[in-house]
């Protein structure tokens, strides 16, 4: 067993406490020190750096949180999580899984199934599998595949790893890591160079006190500035614990999704409400990314290839913004983007939440994502389609695309053509041509301009065919995640 040489003193009075492998520790690090850097420089070198960008999962650790008296584990990419964000949590690494009685089921099965070759990705896989074991997930292939969607292995071809996961999830296992007592000495949250306000008024206070500090939610984009471009953040304001931003509330006709709600939480919330969205979410990032990344972050970074905006455009969502002095305003998602990586968000504003009209979920919807790889890949084209009508005639339509322009865009021109029409070959070719005229996408590393334009046409055609019942859903037929 490797023991850890933890920092024992906190000269700046940061007083950040957390638990690492069952041991309470106090941490004093700069705001942008990642959990991976912290672990590795304190003797826990079992957790590896493969890419430092959240794409390979070699750095995966398990993070336990006390939630209503119960311990829930999630996996995160420790390479892009500031250690300061993990205040009060229990980090478990590959070194901390085994005990006197032997290896953890995830480790034991990885050995038995020959799940490691070079071994470098292995600790990350072990943690992803272990988190599923700890959370009592079912022994299903899809569950295992989803759980390791953010772990790359270049040696094994994955078959033995998936087998190890299936075996581990099928075993009887009594965990010692579920003990709430681990959390008794930890003081949450961090009030040092990572500020962790717990409610909106505290968030606003922090924004006033530290006007230059960047807001961080999941950090899955922001932290690349540190790990890839070697920028330094002196102070961060973490919005991921702001109670109001973390919740999903509903009124009679609206769902209000807090900006800090993660994709994983969205998957759970929409499981019975929108299968189309859930299918998309399974392809949006990896499990580790979805455990951290938030809906608000997806909007705030202004990316033209973000996957949520086209969906939200179709659903007619409104973005709720709030200033540090508490002034709120609602902006239609259609008006949220001003240009390439530019939004209407002002320097002293934050995204509080996204309002979605409930009735928009009743319409026929299809969300298609085109990418080179099925899992954890950035879209070359993201198409969102919403139709009303009786299957042959369209009474209302909303169409939006990502990856086709400098911002996510809606296509009212196409919607106008479709409404009142019967779906037939002529209509398909008419809207196909119209899309080609309306959009001029670009060529980049992900796709050529021509292919993007062709995909916009094909996606619309397929959505209309599925709406009219000509085609079965592609997710079923190609198994692009169900």
């Amino acid at each position: 067993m490797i023991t850890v040489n933890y920092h024992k003193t906190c000269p700046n009075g940061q007083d950040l406490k957390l638990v690492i492998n069952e041991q309470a520790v106090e941490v004093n690090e700069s705001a942008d020190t990642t959990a991976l850097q912290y672990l590795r420089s304190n003797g826990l070198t079992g957790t590896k750096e493969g890419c430092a960008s959240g794409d390979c999962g070699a750095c995966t650790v398990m993070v336990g949180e006390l939630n209503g008296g119960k311990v829930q584990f999630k996996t995160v990419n420790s390479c892009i999580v500031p250690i300061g964000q993990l205040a009060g949590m229990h980090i478990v690494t590959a070194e901390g899984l085994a005990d006197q009685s032997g290896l953890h089921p995830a480790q034991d099965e990885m050995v038995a199934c020959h799940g490691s070759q070079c071994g470098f990705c292995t600790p990350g896989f072990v943690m992803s599998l272990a988190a599923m074991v700890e959370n009592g997930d079912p022994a299903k292939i899809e569950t295992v595949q989803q759980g390791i969607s953010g772990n790359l292995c270049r040696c094994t071809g994955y078959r033995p790893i998936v087998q190890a996961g299936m075996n581990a999830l099928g075993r009887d296992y009594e965990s010692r890591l579920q003990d709430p007592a681990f959390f008794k000495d930890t003081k949450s949250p961090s009030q040092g160079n990572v500020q962790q306000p717990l409610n909106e008024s505290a968030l606003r206070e922090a924004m006033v006190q530290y006007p230059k500090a960047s807001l961080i939610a999941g950090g899955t984009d922001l932290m690349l500035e540190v790990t890839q471009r070697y920028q330094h953040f002196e102070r961060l304001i973490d919005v991921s614990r702001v109670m109001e931003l973390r919740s999903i509330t509903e009124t009679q006709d609206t769902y209000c999704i807090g900006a800090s709600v993660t994709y994983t939480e969205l998957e759970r919330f929409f499981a019975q409400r929108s299968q189309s969205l859930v299918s998309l979410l399974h392809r949006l990032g990896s499990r580790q990314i979805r455990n951290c990344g938030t809906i608000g972050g997806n909007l705030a970074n202004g990316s033209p290839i973000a996957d949520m905006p086209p969906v939200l455009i179709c659903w007619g969502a409104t973005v709720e913004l709030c200033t540090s002095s508490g002034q709120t305003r609602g902006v239609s998602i259609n008006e949220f983007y001003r240009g390439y990586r530019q939004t209407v968000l002002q320097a002293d504003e934050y995204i509080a939440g996204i309002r979605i009209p409930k009735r928009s979920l009743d319409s026929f919807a299809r969300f298609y994502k085109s990418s080179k790889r099925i899992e954890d890949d950035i879209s070359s084209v993201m198409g969102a389609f919403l139709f009303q009508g009786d299957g042959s005639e369209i009474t209302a339509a909303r169409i939006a695309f990502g990856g086709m322009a400098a911002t996510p865009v809606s296509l009212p021109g196409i919607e106008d053509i479709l409404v009142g029409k019967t779906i037939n070959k002529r209509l398909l070719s008419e809207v196909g041509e119209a899309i080609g005229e309306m959009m001029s996408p670009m060529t980049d590393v992900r796709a050529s301009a021509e292919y993007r334009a062709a995909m916009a046409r094909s996606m619309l055609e397929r959505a209309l065919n599925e709406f009219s019942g000509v085609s079965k859903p592609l997710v079923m037929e190609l198994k692009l995640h169900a």
Partner: protein
Amino acid sequence: MRKLTDNEAGAGLNSVASGMGDSLSHESAVKHVTGEAQYVDDILEPVDLLHVATGQSTIAHGRIKSLNLDAVRLAEGVVDVITVSDVPGDPDVSPVYTGDMILASAEVVYIGQPIFAVAAISLELAKRACMQAKIEYEELEAVLTPQQALANEAFVLPTRSFVKGDVDEAIESADHVVEAQLYVRGQEHFYLEGQISLALPTEDGGVHVISSSQHPSEVQKLVASVLGINIHQVQSETRRMGGGFGGKESQAAVLACTASLFAIRNGRSVKYRLPRQDDMVQTGKRHDFWNRYRAGVTDQGVIVGVQMELAGLCGCTADLSEGIVDRAMFHADNAYYYPTTRIDGYRCKTNTVSNTAFRGFGGPKGMIAAESMMDDIARKVGRDPLDVRLENLYAPGRDETPYGQKVEQHMLRDMMEKLAGDADYRDRRNAILAFNKENADLRKGLALTPIKFGISFTSTHLNQAGALLHIYTDGSVHINHGGTEMGQGLYTKIAQVVASTLGVSYERVMVSSTRTDKVPNTSPTAASAGTDLNGMAAQNAAEKIKRRLIEFVASDSGARSNEVLIENDMVMVRGESRSFDNVIKAAYMNRVQLSATGFYKTPKIHFDKETGKGHPFFYFANGAALSEVIVDGLTGEYRVSQVDILHDVGNSINPAIDIGQIEGGFVQGMGWLTTEELLWDDTGRVISNSPANYKIPTAYDVPEKFSVQLYNEPNREETIYQSKAVGEPPLMLALSVWCALRDAAASFSDYKFSPPMNTPATPEEVYYAISAAKEYSPQ
């Protein structure tokens, strides 16, 4: 006298299985899962450690007009800054020829080429310091594609040809001619552990270099040459790599040399680790190839002549491209007999990073031309592609390769027919034809492809290996050998070989770090030959000691040597048995040498580079794969639904490890041919420069139904336990996926047309192949 360790105290040495032929776990498996397996970056950092980063060229080709590093030197944390003029020895770190400079001198030849290096107290500070450099260039014209290089006749090495008979005449008089070209993109290794070296200065004015390298001896030699010191002053060590795949054969050396240079200059330990993006920009990859072929065939699709031109994008220097393009040429026949042929191999010089070894070493680039051609022929003559393949296989009497070696083990027909039978090729083909008739958009594709891969380094001198074996007085066994462990299970197999040769239990044998001061002058662990070479060397060492033990026991008990048997940790002579440990103790007391070196050189091989004829390979490893795909004609998206593999590893030393190599190699090959798109922009910049835009397969991409069977036939050549090499060959089984995708695309022309489809077959590429098939109309 010192007390010898009591046997009973030596726990864990009581098991008796040597493990030969068993599916033993990887020797480090438990250390892998607990995080205890140590990689170079995990070694406890010395307190005086410095970290290295480099400043890189931002243009593809030009002269450096001015280089101002003042701000770099003054930057926070910087301890030392060097340029090429600071190299005391030879700044050229090329593996074979010349041109790979440790740092650029007057001219830069690719974007990302290191120009200067910084040592600082942390990696972050070294990286930030590099951004402070002011560099002015005079830009020169850049050559970026094989087509441009061919037009300019810009080559890193001369063009070579294999010629057999009059191919032009044969093609001209053939019933049919197929002709096509195919652009085959390269591949980023994406070993999970990036390149890294740690250099520790020694009291002898040398260095101890610990690096993630497939070739510690070359690291040692180049470090000595850069520093201008003797090779014996450098110890080079590799315990394990977090993946290599060829990417750490030649590419690791420059990091070791740079770190060592800083270590000597500053008298401090130095670590040079490439962050992922630097690794993806700065180190060589699999070559792009531009392949053109023309074949004459009979009405039945039997080849009468094949002409091929294979143009490899080598990048700015030769690196290992001589052998890589050679191997593409050696495999341009894959498994098929070409009665007449001309194969030309071009080594194109471009202003891109110098490409290097990658699992298959050019072989896949030649094979894909052959497989593409088989499908073209099948569509031309209207036969099932499997029948055309079977018809053209090497066979007795039709067995001479384009380079003169005769194929002696004709096992592929049986393997392919067995696989086709076991996996229902014919029924599935019919079902797919029916499915495709009924579906407008969704189509299925099927392909069964063979591989025949030549085993041996084509540079004959590299086919040698050494080992060093000790037995200690407690009976524990320690083996070193020249091979390196990169996950392929070499150490495990070597321990199995030693245990089985000695007649002792597997647990008794420990394999430790590969070090140049244990086994010198070694070859890279490459060419799939790690076990073949080092296994034989280890066996040779074990046999020497075993012979000494047997002679000792025989003389001790007055028996003849052939009456002594060592087996299951016991030594038997004339009905009496003694424990191995007791015999070892007695041997020591009687001054029997319990240490031995082993050596091996591969027999039978020779090759004349000038004539292009010879016997370059000891034997061939074979395999066959059947892949099925389903494709969406509207978007080009697809899934690989089923893969069945039958592969030839001879006698398997360790079936679990061999199957792991086959599955892993297949998926890696599938990535190369499907999702992994290595792209440059038109200024020569690698734009697939991170895992965010270069996508290797995930677990979800692995076929739902994925079966691997071993074809259990002992190698007829005298290899270690009649096994066959397994490292590279399975990668090329993935050609079946590419062929199946093209088969599905061809269905849109009712199989009348063989649509062009370059690699990787991304959804975009498949979409355009489908479009071409849809547009096809017979004249």
